[in-house]
């Protein structure tokens, strides 16, 4: 029992690792600030394209979204970071992670937006256009707000997934939360920094997960 506490919940080691882990947390936050807006924006474009009148555009975007939803994000990340240099394209770890997660996240967000947009009745579009609003105005003021509201729990859940996904960046030596904690582990020969990182993920994401359950409940009610 004592050995377990020593190896996993050693407060001294955690205190020692804290500055490093905190730096990692900062990088994780930076990564989220880049990837989540990119994914949300890219996803909107994916959804719009998959609902467009052009058959060619619709099909190419469907293939795009299917491909990047089916491909494991870790495989995608390693392909971009370690594969692309063979084609003469060398990206920094940060850029590689952003690109890989942009492709992955926008495909998932895109499907969610699409479901949301399709859940808004055609009558809303007709009413908006009948008052002289342009297609863009009708979409922005009438359709999108309702679409987002209808799929808000899914958008938030997917955002939780994206935050968790950022831990994969450790694989390409990007010093985010997990990578920093693992560095601390290897220096201290103690697992407590990893436990610390896990607790930080939990502290951030647990309230968000609760929130999605409540949102789902509210929409079902």
């Amino acid at each position: 029992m004592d050995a377990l506490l020593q190896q996993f919940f050693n407060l001294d080691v955690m205190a020692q690792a804290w500055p490093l882990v905190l730096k990692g947390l900062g990088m994780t936050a930076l990564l989220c600030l880049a990837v989540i807006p990119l994914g949300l924006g890219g996803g909107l474009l994916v959804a719009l394209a998959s609902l467009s009148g052009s058959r060619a555009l619709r099909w190419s975007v469907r293939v795009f979204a299917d491909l990047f939803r089916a491909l494991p994000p870790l495989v995608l990340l390693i392909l971009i970071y370690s594969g692309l240099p063979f084609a003469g394209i060398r990206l920094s770890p940060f850029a590689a992670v952003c690109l890989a997660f942009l492709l992955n996240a926008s495909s998932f967000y895109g499907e969610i937006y699409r479901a949301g947009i399709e859940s808004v009745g055609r009558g809303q579009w007709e009413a908006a256009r009948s008052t002289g609003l342009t297609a863009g105005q009708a979409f922005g003021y009438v359709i999108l707000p309702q679409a987002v509201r209808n799929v808000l729990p899914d958008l938030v859940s997917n955002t939780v997934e994206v935050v968790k996904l950022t831990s994969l960046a450790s694989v390409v030596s990007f010093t985010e939360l997990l990578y920093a904690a693992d560095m601390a582990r290897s220096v201290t020969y103690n697992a407590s920094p990893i436990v610390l990182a896990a607790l930080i993920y939990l502290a951030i994401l647990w309230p968000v997960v609760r929130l999605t359950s409540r949102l789902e409940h509210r929409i079902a009610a």
Partner: protein
Amino acid sequence: MPAPILDVRALRKSFGPLEVLKGIDLSVRPQELVFLVGPSGSGKSTLLRCCNRLEEPDSGSIRLEGVELMDRACDLNAARRRIGMVFQGFNLYPHMTALGNVTLALRKVLGKSRREAEEIGRAALDRVGLADKAACHPGELSGGQQQRVAIARAVSLEPTLMLFDEPTSALDPELVGSVLAVMRSLREAGMTMVVVSHEMRFAREAADRVVFMEGGAIVEEGPPAAMFTEAQHPRTRAFLQEIGR
């Protein structure tokens, strides 16, 4: 005779192999209230929805105050704000208040300031008897109230023509009267209106002209008194008798 506000010529529309409008001619004069009646599937709603090109006609001509809406160069958004439309299902924006529903196009289409738009919007809600419901969301309103907000939304843009697509069909019987009362007051204020509806009593007392459609064509038209009592065509007589019972 004054120039027509709306002049539809040889309008055709098919859904796949089904021809829904077989070359319709319809002319609506200023301040006229035209009632479109006919069995379901006769094409009356499609005709109405073609008038502002919510439904895209295959061919023909639609002139609004002399401007050809079927022209490639026609600014459809500019034309649409002069054609108010009221739908069977109200189609209010559920995420906005009653006032927000009315002011959206005032601000974004006519470019009014928020203050100005709200002033006009409140006056429009007052006109349909709902000044006290400005801050309510559609979900908090009865069907009759929702439809009156929808009318206020259309009227606030000061259209030259109003289209009503079965405005009372989705309402409980006891709520129909409040909507018809608003339509009657619009008529008294001189609004030009085209109405698709089964409210025959309203047609009889308020319409200037009743147009009977069947199978995508206009069978017969005339003033309500004549149409209801001495229709020429046996199909018209059969329909009006059936529905008037």
